[in-house]
């Protein structure tokens, strides 16, 4: 069965294509199972194309033309991917050590969403600063940032729910987010609602930290004073393909969250390893 890593990227003020390129580069370097697919309608620079085994158009019309955050087309991933088994990533991530072993853990599942996220010191994040909507409404605490699916009926059903919720998010949020409203469309919230509607939390999660990632949003790092961007609090250093943050060596998937982290210098270092 074909396996691959999938990213959907549409440039706005942020260069998501370059982020996807950096992520795909790290996947190519670290993984044996390293087929990649970029789903985009944007022009992909020639120098980037070698890290994408597939570059696929976003199916149907572009639903994110008016949007800055560009998440409205995410529900189409299942329709665009060439792979039977898929690991889907937000683009603002880097793979710092192989996750080839994940496929074995995930092979008996249809859909798996992330429930284990860690701070840069390797501590499990329990702070819900950015997830009040989910916790206060007692919704499944899942992250869409990395998820797995096998192209089958159950995954299509999950993605169909994502479509309906994303296209009608204001109605869904008004009806189901009673205790803590949210104004903007969020794929974490949409995925959480979909899991709730399918009553599938146990089926769509694992008790192991797979998938998992290091989440660098500033206010969940257990700092008494959190700057706007985590880079203002701790030094990061990428050298010989090893990333340290606050003198902690990072491994696994690093979700840097701040677009300005991916400087040309970082990109050059990833390229040249």
């Amino acid at each position, binding site marked *: 069965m074909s396996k691959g890593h999938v990213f959907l990227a549409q440039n706005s003020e942020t260069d998501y294509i370059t982020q996807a390129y950096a992520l795909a580069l790290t996947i190519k370097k670290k993984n044996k199972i390293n087929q990649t697919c970029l789903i985009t309608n944007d022009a992909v620079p020639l120098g980037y194309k070698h890290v994408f085994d597939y570059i696929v158009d976003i199916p149907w019309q572009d639903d994110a033309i008016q949007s800055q955050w560009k998440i409205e087309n995410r529900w189409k991933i299942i329709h665009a991917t060439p792979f039977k088994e898929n690991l889907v990533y937000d683009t603002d991530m880097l793979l710092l050590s192989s996750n080839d072993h994940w496929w074995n853990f995930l092979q008996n599942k249809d859909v798996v969403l992330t429930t284990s996220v860690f701070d840069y010191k390797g501590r499990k994040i329990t702070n819900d600063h950015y997830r009040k909507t989910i916790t206060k409404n007692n919704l499944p605490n899942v992250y869409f940032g990395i998820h797995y699916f096998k192209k089958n009926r159950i995954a299509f059903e999950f993605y169909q729910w994502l479509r309906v919720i994303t296209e009608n998010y204001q109605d869904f949020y008004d009806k189901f987010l009673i205790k803590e409203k949210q104004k903007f469309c969020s794929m974490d919230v949409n995925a959480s609602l979909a899991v709730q509607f399918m009553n599938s939390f146990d089926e769509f999660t694992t008790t192991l930290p797979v998938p998992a990632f290091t989440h660098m949003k500033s206010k969940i790092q257990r700092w008494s004073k959190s700057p706007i961007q985590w880079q203002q609090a*701790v030094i990061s250093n990428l050298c010989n393909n090893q990333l340290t943050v606050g003198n902690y*060596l990072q491994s696994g998937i690093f979700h840097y969250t701040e677009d300005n982290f991916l400087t040309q210098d970082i990109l050059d270092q990833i390229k040249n390893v």
Partner: protein
Amino acid sequence: MTKGVVIFAQNNKEIDYVELAIYAAQQVKTYLSLPVTIITDSKNWLEKAHSDKSSIFDSIIEVKDNSHQSKKFYDGISYKTDSWKNFTRFNVFHLSPYDETLVIDSDYIINSNFLKFCWDQPQDFLIYDKNFDIAGWRDTSEFEFISEYSIKFYWATVFFFRKNKLNECFFNLIEHIKSNWIYYVKLYRLTSTKFRNDYAFSIAIHMMNGFIDDSFATPIPNKLSYVLDRDILIEHKNNKMKFLIQKQNKGDDFIAVSTRDLDVHVMNKHSLLRIIRNV
């Protein structure tokens, strides 16, 4: 394999660390029944002022410590600023006469045989990473990480090591860190430039672990109990200690607390000296 305990004692104008070390050594002999070595820059003082008690030490090793840091030494609510010499501890690997050494501060008062286990277990480097403030209410976050943005805190107050290549690397690394202290202060975002063995040990352990939380240092399997220099030791008999502990939200008010069979780091050295001198 030779076994023993090493105590550092470097006097300043106000505090007779040698006298503290003699007292700590007596406790070691009582509860651990092991030879004790003092490493001191005040050998003459030991032989003149404490000649009647110097035989508690199985060996005396003289060092020079020309460091001139200063800090506030509290005695309850009052304090005096004095010099603080702590630059020689990394040398303990070479200075210790023992193959298997327990190092304790001169103000670490042993009241139990708990630490005997060090010589009966296979790990080559043991150190405290957890603490117990006898006051119970104070914020102990400064002893969890060397700064909140930085790495895990280890106590250089008590540690055990065997002489082997890996531990030699570790102590050499501490010397390197000490020699480049200002660089490490900035790199690890420390809030003070004062050299602290706790911080240097913590950084070296982190580096020996490959910059992750790993297993170079084995945590001593209980908590390091301590009272701050804002607290006052008022009695020590056999294995029992009595303290006046700073009350919550009342800096100049105290509450009495007693301990039994508990090894305690008594940071108020003035009050410890009063107990030793029976004044």
